[in-house]
């Protein structure tokens, strides 16, 4: 058998120097100005979250730095009725779909509001169990099909997740029942300390699609233009009854796995530097500068705006921190069973005593 990875060439439209090697497709120049700004804001948030953990304001945080193009490209083409089924690293993706980034902080704080997804957003709460959400994505998409709704579902997961049984069961179910779903793998090269070469012998994740008779695509996950165009096309096809599809977005986790992790133990600086040059934001910046769509002054204005926005986010976060400790008992069942109600009484007495 030949090398099947050759069937899945990397799709690139804008290279790391901000040069177009393809066309912009559905993305307008104004879109790029907006997306550049949005990515900068989100990057500033992500970096701030890191510092907040260092200051003890929040707990363990999983940064998305470096994966902004993948996350925005996968979600910007979606409609309001489409679904996103994300993980603990997808705060930028969730943000695009209407989940405030404060949820990333709630998550790290261990605050119950993390799961309280706004009613207007078709987004499931961030999944922690590696790979489990891939099956939920299949189910959500399957429901749309059974109800004859024209909605697309995108389920996201990391490269490490592709080793889980649930991922393979999800690929198989999706394929057998032809559900309108896009599997979107953010291949950031590392699952904590384990490199992709240790997860699989195959050269690409995209080629996993072959075994399930599914279309697979491998796209430069740091190229917003390429990811956006691919997902826009596939989401359209999914809404028209095609699918499922597997998309491997090749990207890189520029930061640590989480605030509790030290990547210098398992990866070399040269690799990090190589990927820093492929940063998803800087390539758009180079493009915009070259096209005179933005100037140095405006870039600095974005800095200022980003700082201000992060302050707003933090203010929102602080304003929403207070929550009744009764929340612990309220959503276990639709109706609280008597035996639980008895425990609830005892708990509330204790809450009163300790003055929580």
């Amino acid at each position: 058998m030949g090398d099947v990875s050759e069937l899945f060439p990397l799709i690139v439209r804008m290279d790391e120097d901000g040069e177009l090697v393809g066309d912009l497709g559905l993305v307008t120049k104004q879109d790029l100005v907006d997306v550049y700004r949005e990515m900068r804001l989100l990057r500033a948030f992500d970096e701030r979250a890191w510092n907040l953990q260092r200051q003890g304001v929040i707990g363990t945080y999983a940064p998305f730095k470096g994966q902004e193009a993948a996350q925005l490209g996968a979600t910007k083409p979606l409609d309001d009725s489409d679904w996103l089924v994300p993980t603990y690293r997808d705060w930028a993706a969730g943000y695009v779909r209407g989940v405030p980034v404060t949820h990333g902080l709630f998550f790290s704080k261990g605050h119950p509001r993390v799961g309280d997804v706004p009613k207007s957003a078709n987004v499931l709460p961030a999944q922690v169990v590696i790979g489990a959400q891939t099956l939920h994505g299949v189910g959500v998409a399957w429901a749309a099909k059974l109800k004859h709704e024209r909605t697309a579902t995108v389920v996201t997961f990391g490269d490490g997740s592709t080793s889980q049984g649930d991922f393979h069961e999800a690929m198989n179910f999706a394929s057998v029942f032809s559900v309108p779903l896009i599997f979107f793998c953010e291949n950031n090269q590392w699952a904590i300390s384990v490199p992709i070469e240790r997860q699989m012998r195959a050269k690409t994740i995209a080629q996993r699609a072959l075994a399930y008779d599914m279309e697979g695509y491998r796209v430069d996950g740091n190229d917003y233009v390429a990811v956006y165009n691919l997902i826009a096309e596939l989401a359209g096809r999914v809404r028209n009854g095609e699918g499922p599809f597997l998309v491997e977005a090749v990207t890189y986790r520029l930061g640590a796995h989480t605030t509790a992790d030290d990547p210098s133990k398992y990866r070399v600086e040269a690799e990090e530097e190589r990927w820093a040059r492929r940063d998803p934001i800087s390539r758009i910046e180079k493009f915009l500068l070259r096209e005179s769509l933005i100037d140095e002054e405006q870039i600095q204005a974005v800095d200022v705006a980003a700082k201000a926005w992060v302050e707003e986010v933090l203010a929102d976060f602080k304003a929403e921190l207070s929550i009744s400790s009764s929340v612990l008992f309220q959503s276990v069942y639709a109706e609280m069973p008597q035996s639980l109600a008895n425990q609830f009484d005892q708990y509330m007495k204790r809450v009163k005593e300790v003055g929580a």
Partner: protein
Amino acid sequence: MAKLNVAQALNAALAQALEADETVIVLGEDVGKDGGVFRITDGLLDRFGKERVIDTPLAESGIVGTSVGLAIAGMKPVAEIQFLGFIYETMDQIASQAARVRFRSLGRFSAPMVIRTPYGGGVKAPEIHSDSLEALFTHTPGIKVVTPSNPYDAKGLLLAAIDDPDPVLFLEPMRLYRAFRDEVPDEPYRLPLGKASVVREGTDITLIGWGPSVPLLKAAADELTARHDISAEVIDLMTLTPLDEETIVESVKRTQRAVVVHEAVRTSGFGGEIAAVLQEKAFLYLEAPIFRVTGYDTPYPTTMFEDLWLPDTTQIVATALDAIRY
């Protein structure tokens, strides 16, 4: 009114649920063409079509995990796991996913779904096919555990489980599928979840059990009356969680003695929980410790020793006498 066995009553309930609500779907291994290995879904594929009665790939986590997504997005999946012993394959999707969707999302999402599965021994099945694993799930907040012991309850409880807003693990005693028939109303009806039933009234001791043990409790009660002039009350829990504490506590306050019976292995079995609740809530009424008659703390044996391993009427009678004479 027809005389139906448990299998037929469950089949009737599923047909009526599919009939009444377009969002109800049945999925699992061999549930379509084959009608399930115990024929519980017999004929449903022909009546309701393959979009609603779905033969899935052979993957338990896949069945439950996709059901979670289906339920979140508005469908009412009734998933079948072919035998309870295979539920370990999908432990995460039940305990960490289905059971926690509502809690995780502060009520924004929920996963109303039913997982039906045969369980219990006594049918000379191969290894892993006879285990009673209910305590794994009574130990899991967010999911209800329901188990009928006769055809009438089977239909009423299954229809209630399908209507329930929370995920329900519906345990079907394999040995009772075709053991006897009862009058079962033709029309749909629902029995409340979380409600135990006093299936026989008595004054001297309370025998508590569920599912496959209930016929044993009744036989033991008969024998206690006939041979020892002891009046035993028999309680069928029907729902394990949420537990109907009131019914068991009220009974034991009257009889002052109790024996709990289950097929599951003894240590950390649900019988221990019943005993704990009773001593917390009826301590001063008790005339004897609460005894348990259970499986042993070994893996479920191969069929050769199955009958020696399973609780039987003789053990229940002897244990009840111990409690009486204590």
